[in-house]
């Protein structure tokens, strides 16, 4: 009322006098009535309780989002409201905290990937891959992107959507019998029209791709093309960094670094590249500089790539990114440190292989792909995986991901299940999963009997 009277107005409706009356709503919005904080909490708690959560139920789903442990420190740092209630650090003198944190994040990503430069984040692993594909098209002046069918099918869909809209072509390279991309077919497909090659390692099936061999083929057959790799940042504690293998652009899903699964978002799009491609990179970049007194400080830099300066000539349209998730990644990598991250990666590797061998020895189940894997693996099931999942839920276990929908052309994946084992899973949980799956399969009417089954012979 103080403000109204100082403006000499009787009611706030006078503030809207420039709106044509035909456009003014004549009824209240049809929305539920306001709730007090207490009612709100009860209502939302009831919705949250309508879901099975990963704290109370062991989960063997991966396929792009992973159930790694998030140390307490991460959420406490993220809860500092100086961070989370700020915005893009346009005024660096007042935003040194976020700027330095992002600068440190960029450094950590460079260390993991072996690349020269990293940006401040993109939306998620899928859209980062799409942006990398577009970078490849622009850098090479070519128009066809090659992508392995071993890349996460959700990512492939995102890349296809972006490229289709921008007017570029995409060609998928099938896999071989080991579960990795078929290098002969890759060699046949790569040529002078190739803009970029996209691989993922560990790939969608958990199998490690031979990046070195694929890179050599690409250099020989399509020297102008960009080599793009989607890498898992935790696996990079053990695996050769893409930067040592001639890769031009590394992207990845950073959710695994201290971010909760959160029903698939917010995630964290990682992007790093060679110095040569720096000015084609999308997104914010933080750089070091000095202030008027010579002290070290940080600013957003190389902004002539960005939409607020270049408008339609920008390298991307991204503005708001996933800064807080990048902060989570930086805190995670700091708290785990050099030894901790390696231990998490070893645990994933050991437990993943233990689970794979457990299923290999299980009657009726088979392991179709034998290549080296990291944290995920494919299992052929004697009954449809969706049925297995339903049975497991009754035991309080969240099972794996059924693959058939994404690979109708692959005979061996018709009844396939993608399982994921992180460091959070215990041996007892893995054993329980195997036993419950075996029991569910044995109870199923479609399960062949031990006497007459032909399906089983090669597995026993």
């Amino acid at each position, binding site marked *: 009322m103080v403000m109204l009277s100082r403006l000499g107005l009787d009611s706030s409706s006078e503030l809207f006098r420039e709106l044509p009356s035909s456009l003014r709503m004549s009824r209240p919005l049809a929305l539920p009535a306001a709730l007090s904080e207490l009612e709100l909490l009860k209502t939302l*708690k009831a919705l949250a309780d309508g879901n099975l959560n990963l704290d109370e139920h062991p989960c063997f789903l991966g396929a792009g989002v992973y159930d790694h442990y998030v140390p307490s420190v991460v959420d406490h740092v993220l809860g500092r409201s100086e961070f989370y209630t700020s915005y893009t650090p346009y005024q660096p003198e007042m935003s040194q905290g976020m700027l330095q944190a992002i600068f440190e994040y960029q450094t950590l990503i460079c260390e993991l990937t072996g690349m020269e430069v990293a940006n401040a984040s993109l939306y998620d692993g*899928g859209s980062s891959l799409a942006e990398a594909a577009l970078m490849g098209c622009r850098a090479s002046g070519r128009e066809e992107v090659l992508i392995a069918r071993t890349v996460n099918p959700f990512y492939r869909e995102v890349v296809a959507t972006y490229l289709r809209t921008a007017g570029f072509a995409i060609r998928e390279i099938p896999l071989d019998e080991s579960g990795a991309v078929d290098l002969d077919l890759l060699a046949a497909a790569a040529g002078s029209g190739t803009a970029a090659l996209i691989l993922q390692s560990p790939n969608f099936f958990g199998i490690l791709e031979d990046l070195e061999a694929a890179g050599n083929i690409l250099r020989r057959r399509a020297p102008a093309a960009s080599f793009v790799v989607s890498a898992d940042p935790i696996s990079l504690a053990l695996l050769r960094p893409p930067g040592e293998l001639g890769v031009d652009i590394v992207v990845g899903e950073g959710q695994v670094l201290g971010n909760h699964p959160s029903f698939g*978002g917010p995630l964290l799009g990682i992007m790093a590249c060679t110095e040569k491609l720096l000015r084609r990179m999308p997104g914010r970049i933080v750089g070091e500089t000095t202030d008027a007194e010579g002290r070290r400080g940080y600013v957003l830099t190389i902004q002539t790539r960005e939409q*607020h300066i270049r408008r339609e000539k920008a390298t991307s349209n991204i503005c708001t990114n996933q800064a807080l998730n990048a902060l989570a990644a930086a805190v995670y990598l700091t708290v785990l440190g050099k030894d901790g991250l390696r231990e998490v990666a070893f645990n994933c590797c050991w437990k993943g292989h233990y689970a794979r061998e457990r299923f290999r020895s299980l009657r009726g189940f088979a392991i179709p792909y034998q290549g080296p894997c990291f944290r995920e693996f494919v299992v052929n099931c004697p009954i449809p995986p969706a049925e297995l999942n339903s049975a497991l839920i009754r035991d309080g276990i969240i099972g794996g991901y059924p693959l058939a929908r994404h690979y109708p052309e692959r005979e061996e994946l018709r009844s396939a299940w993608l399982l994921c084992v992180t460091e959070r899973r215990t041996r007892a949980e893995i054993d329980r999963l195997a036993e419950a799956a075996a029991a569910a399969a044995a109870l199923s009417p479609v399960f062949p009997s031990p006497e007459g089954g032909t399906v089983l012979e090669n597995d026993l």
Partner: protein
Amino acid sequence: MKTIFERSRSGRRGLLIPPCDVPEVELDSLIPRRFQRGAPPALPEVDQLTAVRHYTALSRRNHGVDSGFYPLGSCTMKYNPKVAEDIARLAGFARLHPLQPAETCQGALALMHDLERYLAEIAGMARVTLQPAAGSHGELLGLMIIKAFMARRGDGERRRVILVPDTSHGTNPASAALAGYRVVQVRSGPDGDVDIEDLAARLGEDTAALMLTNPSTLGLFERRIEAISGLVHRAGGLLYYDGANMNAIMGISRPGDMGFDIVHFNLHKTFATPHGGGGPGSGPVGVVRELVPFLPVPVIEKGPGGYYLDHDRPLSVGKLHAFYGNFGVTVKAYAYIRSMGPDGLRQVSEDAVLSANYLLSLLRGHYDLPFDRPCMHEFVLSARKHKELGVAARDIAKRILDYGFHPPTTYFPLTIAEALMVEPTESESVETLDAFAEAMVQIARDAVTNPEMLRTAPHTTAVRRLDEVAAARNPVLRWKRRDSEKGEGA
């Protein structure tokens, strides 16, 4: 301040990992040696307290809405309710995998389904998707939908142009270019509204759409929006609504009623979800009925067995996020809408517009006002007269830092020389607005009497003015150990 790498000491750690309870096989037997890395990545080695103190110190060198006034125009830096943070952290939301069978995530699907409907009602649209992760991601999706719709209608080949006003956000033309369109700018007239004659001259057979913000980026309501809508639609084009400024019109006017066909929302602006130091945001998109088939997959449907995700949408543009967008952010927006209710949301917009007009009344006369009209939720001042005294909008912004306020948006819109764009939001008290106005008035006086003080501002922040030119010229984009520091740590 030291970097975390400079605090690192060999052998220290911040967390224990549980011992492995399966056989610890020799790595070479699982992964061929040539796939393994030689030296481990050089991550910091610090104890937990050192890590916590480092990040606490960093947080104290950062300004958020909780620290003080943040009138960053076009960004709607309103209060972020704390209860929403607690809700988003509930295990039933945060600890949920996106590929869980539908029967195990009915609560999450119900929330998304209802939020889509609330947003559709607020904007006057037929249906909404929550998939875009930010406003510009929503713009890109909107343009993909336009492209797919026109391709199906049969005139997509010739409709290659997206029109944007010269005052538009940079994301509008950038999104259009990313979607493969040619961008043509439309002039704004002397009153700040779109120049209708210029628009009419640029509309034609090649027009795909006009992207518009209303209220505009000048903080003014586009009074001839109905005429604009008629012109665009008669030319066969569609009308796209950039929702960055929706905070001014909730419950008062709806983009759908104005004639818009596609709308994006910025949940991190209008719906009080925190900006996170630059993200995560969320940019849902609403469309009119005939565009619904083109929405990205999956869409949430409700059947007799409960909520489910429908991937079988033959006309869909595809996918632009691996899963369903920034779910954790949408939870907070849902909580906000439920706690405000229909009257509360209308009150938000009324108060936001009142605050802006009040603040404008205190600054009128002290700064140049390019358009002296009633503003909506924000207004644009110009420091062009101060520039003649040798004080730029940048200098004024830097001096505001010394008062503990975040400065307004500067140098945007591009059509206004030395622009200062102020958005106070509904959250702020009259005392805060008075204090800010007092500082701004003092700075305007100092521009005359002591311009040097402004040119060398800020004087009280953690660092003084930073050399952005040097940063861009010689990019240092990661920390590297200097030779002199070798042997100090790891």
